[in-house]
């Protein structure tokens, strides 16, 4: 690019070439450094303070408390096998460095298969929405069977999501989303995002981890427990 011969300045004209040079450089800089991200939203949750692994928790009730368990484990696994068989089945399903893409989502006797690839990788909004709606429908119908008939939502049986620790986060979150959606259809008030309102809503939590060192045998045991949970 030419910067002029100086004749322009003598005539009192502003030399625009360096200005354009600079603007081009800045434009290039911003184009290269900026990244376009989608607008992010959030689902709120409240961790329980009166249960879990606290050593000084109140004495345990004799009767097991009523709760609704949502179980998530790799698709294709059935009840009635030994932990070692689940361990071997997992090794066949899960290739090194890969996640399990298909999950079974079960609430009581109701269950369905969830396609993780649609959830996390599909660009087709309609396809993703359809799949999420199907999950919401299944979980909603299952939760309907556990209604206690009490007026306050916080008095309903707590929902606990038991996801096999080796599955990806998308499955657990979509189950959480489905319960929250079901609750929004039953809610007596509209949640505005204020954290204090969460105490008035039904308790929905993720089960604490069962194992610590993630050996193949322990993963088999964990699968056995999740698959056989009521």
């Amino acid at each position, binding site marked *: 690019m030419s910067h002029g011969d100086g004749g322009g300045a003598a005539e*009192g004209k502003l030399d625009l070439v360096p200005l354009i040079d600079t603007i081009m450089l800045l434009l290039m800089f911003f184009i290269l450094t900026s990244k376009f991200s989608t607008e992010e939203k959030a689902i709120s949750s409240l961790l329980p303070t009166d249960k879990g692994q606290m050593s*000084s928790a109140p004495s345990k009730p004799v009767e097991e408390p009523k709760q609704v368990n949502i179980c998530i484990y790799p698709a294709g696994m059935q009840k009635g096998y030994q932990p070692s068989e689940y361990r071997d089945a997992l090794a066949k399903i*899960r290739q*090194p460095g890969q996640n399990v893409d298909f999950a079974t989502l079960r609430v009581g006797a109701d269950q369905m298969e969830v396609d993780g690839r649609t959830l*996390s990788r599909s660009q087709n909004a309609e396809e993703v929405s359809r799949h*999420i709606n199907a999950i919401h429908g299944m979980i909603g119908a299952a939760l309907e069977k556990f209604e206690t008939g009490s007026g306050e939502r916080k008095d309903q049986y707590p929902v606990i999501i038991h996801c096999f620790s*080796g599955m*990806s*986060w998308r499955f657990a979150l979509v189950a959480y989303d489905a319960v929250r*959606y079901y609750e929004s259809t039953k809610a007596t008030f509209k949640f505005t995002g204020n954290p204090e309102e969460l105490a008035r809503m039904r308790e929905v939590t993720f089960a604490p981890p069962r194992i610590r060192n993630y050996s193949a045998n322990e993963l088999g045991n964990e699968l056995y427990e999740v698959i056989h949970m009521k």
Partner: protein
Amino acid sequence: MSGKKRKKHFDSISDELDLVPLIDVCFLILLFFILCGRLTLDQRTEQITVPPTKTAQKLPETRGWERVVVNVYGSTQNGKPPRNSIAMPPLLPWYSDKVDDYTGYQRLRQELNKVHDKVEKYDDPKGTGMKLPKAIIEIRADAETEYRVVQEIQQVLSDTIDPFNNMLPKNVKPAELKSFVNIDFTTRKPGEN
């Protein structure tokens, strides 16, 4: 005669009014503000694709509540125990590679303790005697993150396990725990990647 005068007058003004330094300075100021804004506001610098959901709400501005974003990424590599990274920008991410490596959880707990000491507290409505911090921890986990990592982070947030002692349960009174109970999970609208 008058035309000549006018031309002279015009020349003297354009000689005095040199716009180049003005433009230079404007660009410098613009650059300064753009870069400063980026440094202070962006807690979401990690390249993370959060999972899609339908009930999510726009991140609300909650007065009197501190919001802390925890970026999480974790995966299984070559069938080995999972590797994970936890980041609280502008701090650099903390990586854990091995089975007994709890670096990420330990550093997270240290930072959470600082937040806990700083913010306002309220009494636990469930009557456990705990003083809960007025802070919302936003877990911004990648859709492909192993569920285990998110699960353990929730345990670290509730302070019921000790990352400095092999992630074993803490043996203290509930009132002594530095628990964070208000958690947000970051999501996006279906189909937007």
